[in-house]
């Protein structure tokens, strides 16, 4: 009982919910995402999440940036010089030059370096004035693109889109470190911040290995996806999953979703999409598996996700042990200092 790490069959029971419904979650199949961002808007409408900044970020069509206190769903857009399965991107044979992707990414990066909190808040706050001007793509060219050799031309291309959300981890870093009990595990196995409790200590922000939760400015409290705790309590789907036009976001009982995801993965592999993989589905991973997991078409870090996160609580016993040793040394030093100094 009361595991700190590793697979856990009954998360809600472990959190003291004696009789409880099955664990629910999201399966986000990014291979059918059309990047419409309905999830972002539906979430905000339902949960009255504030607008989070009107900045053109230059990250393809992503102007949200990343998840945060004011973005509980975030659609990532990745333009890549490679292809998915048997998909034909259509650029072969065109008079193209080299890809512009490295340079565009460089222009974005220059802004991130100047952004508050390294950009982990970008999309929430405007960039500071005096931002560095982006670099042009080298000198204006004098070659006609068609004059370039085929080797320099770009042919492969794909555009990945993925809706990110709080993972509702089996072992949730944010929840574990919350000193007030504001963050708690619900009877559905989800992780929710109770706004009437949170005092904004900010510990959860650093406790999350996915960079999801954040403190809302001018409010001071931590905010993240609740998996629509109020809706699911009444048998409704979370707002994002309900709105999703292509059913990229699927809500349901976690066990069933995992089976569904396995089938979908097998189907994609059969279709030649070998790079498809599930992320957060494995109960043996560093957070005991995610309540919201994903089918991705590339490495997680390409979407801004950590490749192998673990809950800090995993090491809590060891850390306390070291702290105990240090404390003992500290006390010993104090005692020794006075014993050596003797009475006066």
């Amino acid at each position, binding site marked *: 009982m009361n595991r700190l790490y590793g697979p856990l069959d009954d998360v809600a029971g472990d959190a003291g919910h004696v009789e409880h419904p099955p664990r629910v979650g999201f399966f986000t199949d990014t291979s059918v995402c059309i990047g419409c961002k309905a999830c972002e808007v539906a979430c905000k409408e339902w949960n009255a999440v504030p607008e989070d900044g009107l900045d053109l970020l230059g990250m393809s069509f992503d102007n949200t940036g990343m998840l945060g206190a004011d973005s509980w769903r975030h659609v990532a857009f990745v333009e890549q010089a490679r292809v998915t399965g048997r998909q034909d991107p259509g650029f072969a044979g065109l008079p193209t030059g080299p890809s512009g992707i490295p340079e565009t990414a460089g222009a974005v990066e220059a802004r991130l370096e*100047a952004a508050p909190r390294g950009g982990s808040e970008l999309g929430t706050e405007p960039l500071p004035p005096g931002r560095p001007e982006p670099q042009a793509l080298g000198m204006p060219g004098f070659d006609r693109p068609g004059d370039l050799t085929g080797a320099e031309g770009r042919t492969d291309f794909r555009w990945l889109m993925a809706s990110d959300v709080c993972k509702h981890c089996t072992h949730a870093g944010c929840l574990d470190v919350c000193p007030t009990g504001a963050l708690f595990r619900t009877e559905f196995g989800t992780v929710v911040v109770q706004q009437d409790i949170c005092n904004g200590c900010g510990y959860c922000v*650093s406790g999350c290995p996915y960079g999801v939760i954040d403190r809302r400015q001018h409010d001071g409290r931590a905010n993240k996806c609740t998996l629509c705790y109020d809706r699911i309590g009444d048998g409704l789907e979370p707002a994002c999953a309900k709105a999703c036009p292509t059913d990229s976001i699927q809500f349901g009982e976690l066990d069933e979703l995992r089976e569904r995801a396995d089938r979908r993965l097998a189907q994609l592999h059969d279709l030649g999409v070998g790079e498809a993989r599930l992320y957060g589905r494995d109960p043996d991973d560093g957070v005991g598996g995610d309540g919201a997991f994903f089918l991705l078409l590339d490495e997680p870090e390409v979407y*801004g996700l950590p490749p192998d996160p673990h809950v800090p609580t995993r090491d809590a016993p060891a850390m306390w042990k070291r702290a105990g040793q240090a404390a003992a040394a500290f006390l010993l030093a104090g005692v020794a200092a006075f014993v050596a100094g003797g009475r006066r």
Partner: protein
Amino acid sequence: MTGPEPAELPSDAGGGAARSAEMFQGIRRRRGGRHGGRRGGGEPTVVPEAEFRSYYGRPVLKAPVWEWKIAAYLFCGGLAAGSSVVAAGADLTGRPALRRSSRLGSLGALLASLYFLVSDLGRPERFHHMLRVLKPTSPMSVGTWILSAFGAGAGAAAVDELVPRRWRRTWPARLLRRLARPLGLSAAATAPGVASYTAVLLSHTAVPGWNEVRDELPFVFVGSAAASGGGFGMLCAPVAEAGPARAFAAVGAAGEIVASRVMEHRLGLVGEVYREGHVARLWHASEALTAAGLAGTLLVAHRSRVGAAASGLALLAGSALQRFGVFEAGVASTKDPKYVVVPQRERLDARGSRP
């Protein structure tokens, strides 16, 4: 926080080998040379820039929302803990001046730390929610309860020192006087917890710069606490009484320096955040001050009141800068996805290579 800096074009590191990899978005030789690429002794860094993929170079983690106040809190907490040990020792060994100043110092540091802690909350008026639960998985919760126990003892003992002469004969004052020693001792007993839990507080996070130093940080922090507690005693008490404070400070300072060196040496890629830029300056200043304080403690503090005070101040300053350094290093480690992705990717690859 770093100010705006000119954009760096990708350096020539990596050369042709990286060319094909560039086809995939996110391959970075990021921010190479941004911090000057130099470390402590001035020798140039030879570690090649790591290659990894990311989402537009965007951080994976959220940078801590904590401000400088948390670093100040770490320092004050350590000072309070160190001082309370000195105070208890002084009490038991008959060093009234040292006892008095350390008790007061402990209370002052405690109050300051509480101020820093509470004012950094998003909702300070809800600070008491900390006592709603007792969560073993939350170092902040554990720390809150430790601090409560510590605060009761340290506070009462200090108040005893503040009772005006004309009230000394009243029965509450007499009761307090009788309780002051056991309460002071209780504070000293919990002080090691106060001194060390803050290391767990930082390490028990996803922040690479804090999490990956989890084995050494408690020693750095207790060393720092001892150095500052002893240093404070040296600063405030007469040389004659401050002997044990000097010893405590010296052991603490030595421990702090050694533990920090070990920590920095053991760190892999993440060690960059301690070795580069702003943090490196803090870190070097801290070490220099602590080393100077240590030398002063050993060489002059037993002879000269001024020397003792200077040494104490150096130790206090060194301790404070060390806390700020650790704090800033953690923040810096969240701003660059490199420190998240590369170690995790290496871990995965290592696991994947196993049969």
